[in-house]
């Protein structure tokens, strides 16, 4: 195999693997749910993107024609990651998960849980 193609695939794979690992370390080490929520998103976008593009380059080089299966998975993951994060954040608000003490603007959590605009409670106060 051509040396430069192999080098490109290797670099993409290493970038993807490092991001996947960092996302999981963040998931297991960060202190509360709302900070934990953002760590695996890096694994989904950059990590999986790197591995999928490496696979795309390899398959294109081996088969001789342009391979787009992987692009399909990349697009699907990029579309669904924000929806999943939004649903999980809504679930955590609904279950009244505790945020860290030093989180700013914690008074906005209650109206967000009630699905009201932020100024709604200010009128009653």
């Amino acid at each position, binding site marked *: 195999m051509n040396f430069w193609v192999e080098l490109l695939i290797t670099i993409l794979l290493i970038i993807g693997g490092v991001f996947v690992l960092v996302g*999981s370390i963040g998931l297991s080490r960060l202190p509360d*749910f709302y900070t934990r929520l953002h760590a695996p998103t890096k694994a989904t976008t950059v990590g999986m993107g790197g591995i999928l593009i490496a696979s795309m380059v390899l398959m294109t080089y081996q088969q001789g024609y342009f391979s787009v299966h992987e692009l399909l998975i990349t697009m699907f993951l990029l579309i669904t990651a924000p929806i999943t994060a939004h649903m999980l954040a809504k679930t955590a608000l*609904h279950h009244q998960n505790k945020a860290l003490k030093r989180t700013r603007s914690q008074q906005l959590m209650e109206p967000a849980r009630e699905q009201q605009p932020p100024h709604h409670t200010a009128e009653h106060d």
Partner: protein
Amino acid sequence: MLNTAILIVSGMVCVALILNLWRLLRGPDLSDRILALDTMYINSIALILLYGMHMGTGLYFEAALLIAMLGFVSTVALCKYLLRGDIIE
């Protein structure tokens, strides 16, 4: 070089899966466990793709695509169940 890189990255993804499993078992709240499951299916897609690259076939992409779609649907269904107490109202 490529085979070594695939092996190293597979090891990284396996360590990531073990860390996710730790969060899945320990997670103080239900949403933590759902988040860990969500990350686990994404990492398993990476593992399947790496296996396909190692074997040199494109046969495993369909399995990866299926896992991506079913994982997304199951995560949304679990969140919906926790939010509303019902999945299809």
